[in-house]
């Protein structure tokens, strides 16, 4: 039941004291004409309403969440504790600089740690999410070319396996997308790339994630970034998959000029049902003077704001999703220089273990010898032989309390299930999940109808998305 249906006029919580000054009267012309219909709830009913909603949701703490490219690792509780310190939450963003030394220290330490992990020289914490970071990175590249007088460099190369945000970000940055097909391993086709780039002075740059969305590390990565640089372009690293390589390979050493990270993936801050996240952007020295926003500098233990000399502007108000940075920094401090690579190692181990075990019954897309943090199962064979699709397997997982892998992505594999187990799952959990996956494959062959009907144990069964889109009901209608 919606909260509006539970509302009864006359109820409410006792939040505020009486107004202790004379009530002022604003001009009649500017006063609200329509009624408000906000819920009028007793506190007990409020509490129960949201408890009920929480029961109809599934978080990382509820169970295994191998959602590929989303890095649903465990979100340590200590992060939440430090981010709730009043010394962070009660600070106004426009306080004098001598009263926000702690906040600036958080910014500085986080910026420095991310730079060390990625091999970049500078970082900004202003972007609020991964897509926002992509947009920022592309604007950096745009500003760089414009400063060089290269107004014709407007083309961005995006591989066909890329996340949909990549091309959409390019368009927001006023650039034109060139899609380059992958090779049979789902990797960048170096020869095709060369054909597009050689002598092409319209190339602004390349957007790439490495390892890619199939969990494969591109062995030609240096050659790829060299090709882009040779034609005058810049290389942008989408950090969606950084959890695979921390301490093992740095985007900076691969030849990338700028990078965005997702603190809500790699650095263990919670996803919050879709945000708030944080998408810091790092760059090498030649792009640093265009960085947006302000960053923190330290001199003799005192912190101050600084601004890049040819800053491209502000990506959002103030300094980014600050409390998310507090959580990420807490995590980085706990793991430290040994723990960060250790996390990647175990993420890769867990993915390979699961891939190996599942390859007994599922086809693994691109059949890699070894994967990084994730791998893609291709349900094409099952679909052909039994009619059970990737969607059906996913829905079957729901009935077993497992959040399904990412479905139908990358687009280059038609019946894709992309699984990323993360380092924070134990062998016991993996073994149990593997058994569930294998049982669902058996079910596909013995009783496919059961999977078409799944899920049956969830609060609702499959929903009519066509009806929802054809005749949208987007809010509750008050009588």
């Amino acid at each position, binding site marked *: 039941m919606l909260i509006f249906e539970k509302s009864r006029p006359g109820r*409410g*919580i006792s*939040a505020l004291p009486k107004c*202790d000054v004379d009530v*002022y009267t*604003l001009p009649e012309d500017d006063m609200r004409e*329509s009624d408000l*219909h*906000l819920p009028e*709830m007793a506190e007990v009913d409020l509490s129960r309403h*949201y408890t009920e909603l*929480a*029961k109809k*949701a599934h978080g*990382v703490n509820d169970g295994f969440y191998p959602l590929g490219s989303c890095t*649903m690792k465990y979100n340590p509780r200590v992060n939440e504790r430090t981010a709730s310190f009043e*010394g962070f939450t*009660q*600070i*106004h963003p*426009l*306080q*004098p600089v001598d009263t926000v030394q702690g906040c600036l220290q958080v910014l500085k330490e986080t910026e420095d740690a991310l730079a060390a*992990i990625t091999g970049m020289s500078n970082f900004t914490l202003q972007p*609020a*999410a*991964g*897509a926002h970071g992509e947009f920022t990175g592309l*604007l950096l590249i745009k500003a760089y070319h414009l400063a060089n007088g290269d107004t014709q460099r407007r083309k961005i190369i995006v591989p066909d396996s890329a996340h949909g945000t990549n091309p*959409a970000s390019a368009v927001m*940055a006023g650039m034109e997308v060139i899609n380059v097909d992958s090779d049979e391993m789902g990797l960048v086709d170096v020869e095709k790339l060369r054909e597009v780039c050689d002598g092409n002075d319209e190339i602004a740059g390349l957007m790439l994630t490495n390892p890619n969305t199939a969990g494969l590390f591109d062995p030609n990565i240096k050659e790829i970034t060299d090709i882009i640089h040779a034609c005058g372009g810049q290389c942008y690293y989408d950090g969606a998959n950084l959890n695979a390589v921390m*301490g093992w*390979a740095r985007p900076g050493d691969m*030849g990338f000029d700028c990078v965005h990270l997702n603190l809500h993936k790699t650095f263990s801050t919670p996803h*919050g*049902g*879709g*945000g*708030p996240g944080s998408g810091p952007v790092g760059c090498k020295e030649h792009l640093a003077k265009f960085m947006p926003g302000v960053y923190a500098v330290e001199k003799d233990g005192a912190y101050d704001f600084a601004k890049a000399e040819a800053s491209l*502007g502000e990506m*959002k*108000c*103030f300094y980014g999703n600050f*409390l998310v940075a507090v959580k990420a920094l*807490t995590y980085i*401090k*706990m*793991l430290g*220089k040994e*723990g960060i690579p250790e996390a990647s190692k175990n993420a*890769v181990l867990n993915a*390979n273990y699961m891939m190996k075990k599942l390859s007994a019954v599922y086809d693994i897309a691109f059949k890699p010898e*070894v994967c990084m943090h994730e791998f893609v199962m291709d349900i094409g064979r099952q679909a052909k032989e039994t009619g059970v699709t990737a969607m059906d397997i996913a829905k079957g997982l729901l009935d077993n309390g497992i959040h399904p892998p990412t479905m139908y992505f990358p687009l280059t594999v038609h019946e894709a299930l992309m699984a990323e187990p993360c380092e*924070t799952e134990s062998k016991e959990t993996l073994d149990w999940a593997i058994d569930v996956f294998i049982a669902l494959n058996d079910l596909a062959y013995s009783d496919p109808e059961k999977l078409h009907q799944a899920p049956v144990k969830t609060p*609702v*069964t499959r929903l*009519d*998305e066509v009806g929802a*889109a054809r005749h949208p009901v*987007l809010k509750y209608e008050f009588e």
Partner: protein
Amino acid sequence: MGTFVPNTKAQQQEMLQEIGYEKLDDLFAHIPDAVKFEGELDLPAGMSEMEVSKDMKKIAAKNKIFSSIFRGAGAYRHYIPAMVQHVTSNETLQTAYTPYQAEISQGVLQSIFEYQTMICDLTGMDVSNASVYDGGTAAGEAIAACRGRKAKKALVSATIQPSVMKVIETYCFGNEMELVVIPEKDGVTDVDALQSLMTDDTCCVLIQHPNYYGSLEPAAQIGEIAHSVKNCRYIMSVNPITLGTMKTPREYGADFAIGEGQPLGMAPAFGGPYLGFMASIDALKRNLPGRIVGQTTDHNGKTGYVLTLQAREQHIRREKASSNICSNQALCALTVGVYLASMGSEGLKEVATQCYSKAHYMAAELSRAGFDIENEEFFHEFVTKSDKDADAIMKALAEKGILGGLPLGDGRILWCCTEMNSKADIDEAVAIIKEVQ
């Protein structure tokens, strides 16, 4: 060092053996030597939870918490009922992903549907999205959503919050729309100037109401001028607290209502996370960026909720999408929902009334102390001018744990009052200010 890896060394070895490897490092052997990172990351050594808690507490203690705040300018301290933190720290709601798997995400989806309903109710609009990053990005996105095939000129009032203007500039640097600033006159948008800037290729007019200085804009008149050009949209950025008592953007004729949602239950938190809300009239719902939740039914006819109108979005439209946004600020949208449900219609009216009543009380007291008040009509922020040194005023207030208004230069100060500022607090601040020479 701290770790969140549950597998013991023995288990790791066992797993390696099962997949045919000897050492963990072998799994990285295929990374080309040329790009392999050798050596140690330049990070401090890891720490235990106790050490990190202590360290972070020490860092937090370097910040100064003001007991009394008279500064707004885009971030506001309001009373946040205990229920808000209680609900938003629920582990499940906090650690869930975007609700792609609707069957196990009904709680998150319903909370967004309720949020959308509340935003529509507040603003008078027909459709709300599930939120964007903040008030600044909402403005940048709204302008992009108005872009026509030929109409690419956006008119934005000089009286909006400066940091929002900077974000709009950045978005327009990206999408190459033409941004023209409407000048201000006497602290509000210059309507004559606006009239003369309107051309056939104007796709939108954006104002903030109340504006950066707290003043009420001639919002209805601006709407009429905006609509004098075909397909030109009127975007109003509003502080949602004002909607407890003030006219809705719809009632002023707006096509899009946007704004910073932080006042609805979010702590100032050094600037974020906050939330940008965006709502529109029905005819423009497909121009809204970001997630939208819709109501539908399941196989058995039971009511449920899904992400809908998805073909607008980047993951389907790719380079043809008008925005790249894929997350919303779901937990912040939940915060808004719990805040508004806790306050209720009457509570929000009370918050709004106390805000502007206290601001007017403080303005009157400062006026008696010899300060000029620049605003004609204002909500809960106002600008004073005097010969007294603004920095000296700030310093005197800070010594008593009070954060004064924001100095704007030339002896001008932007003040803000909310329900959090008691009469006694205001009297104390004014007394201190009077003492400053």
